[in-house]
């Protein structure tokens, strides 16, 4: 059994960096799924004390997801560029996409088109 059952290609053909990113993608998926479950339980319970605890736990899952997302951003210049374009903006999201594709993006960060996506190689070294 692989460490993560979600690999879609033979593990020996994947780089350590790709496998680490896979771990992060799966972790984010699990954290948001947990937040969704808590959301529903908060709605469903009639006990206010339990609802408060579940809401607290739900919000911790969001924190976990944000931490992993930040790690992914640091590994992936393309994701970094998209997050800088879309996050912490106030315009309608589809308008931001139109501006980004026309080269007039006004998001929070830089334009990374042309970057080779090399980044860290620390985990890749033999």
């Amino acid at each position, binding site marked *: 059994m692989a460490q993560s059952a979600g690999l879609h290609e033979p593990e020996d053909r994947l780089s350590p960096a790709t496998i680490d990113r896979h771990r992060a993608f799966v972790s984010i998926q699990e954290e948001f799924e947990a937040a969704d479950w808590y959301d529903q339980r908060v709605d469903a319970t009639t006990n206010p004390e339990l609802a408060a605890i579940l809401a607290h736990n739900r919000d911790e899952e969001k924190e976990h997801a944000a931490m992993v997302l930040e790690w992914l951003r640091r590994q992936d210049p393309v994701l970094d560029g998209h997050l800088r374009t879309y996050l912490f903006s106030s315009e309608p999201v589809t308008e931001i996409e139109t501006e980004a594709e026309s080269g007039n993006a006004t998001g929070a960060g*830089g334009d990374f088109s042309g970057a080779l996506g090399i980044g860290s190689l620390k985990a890749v070294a033999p």
Partner: protein
Amino acid sequence: MNHLLRSHAPITDDAWAELDREVQQRIVPPLAARKLVDFAGPKGWEHSATNLGRVSPVDAPGDGLFAHQRRVLPLAELRADFTVSRSELLDFSRGAADLDLGALDAAARRIAEAENVAVFHGWAAAGIVGITEAATSEPIELGADVAKYPRHVAKAVETLLSAGISGPYGLALGPEGYTEVVETTEHGGLIVFDHLREILGGPIVWAPGVVGAVVVSLRGDDFVLESGQDLSLGYDHHDASTVSLYLEESFSFRVVSPDAAVALTP
């Protein structure tokens, strides 16, 4: 479009993708520093300086006032120019798979080697202090006998352990030394390369630009390469026969723990 001006080049999207792919393949092997030190970023072309968290006193503008100025490490820009034949690009559009990209290869090697030198030996003009310049421990002489390298590397590891620096450890080795290490066996037939890896617990990295060798801790947070714009491929100009392109990056480097590395001199 950003300052790389790629859309102004007489290069199709497919050819750009091919050039990007070629650079990615050719530049990763010589990028030794990134295999051993932490990489922070990329923070974008607009990112201009690394926060050092320190201040310098400055004259206050009036009585009863105290003033300091923040200290930062400005990012340096590195660029390696090269040209590609327009006829080669046309041949690519016809399906040619064996493009002559020798100049691209040389540029990739130049910029990778410059990054290695800045990280391991410093770049005074850009205010970068390299690992071997900052290291607090005495350098260890490698000597000419490659079979004795394990002894010297073990001494370096022992120096790090004595300073409370945990592993695993990695070794950046200049190209000549690397080749010799791969080829040499010790008494008893053990290959020096394998023996060194056992001592280090981490990788041995082929490091163009490195003079001698450097043992570094890989525990993290000791050496930080901060990237503004990570390695990118841009367009400069073209004429009837060639397209002038360049590889470019902006970065700073700082040694956080000068006792987390040991230099091994030739």
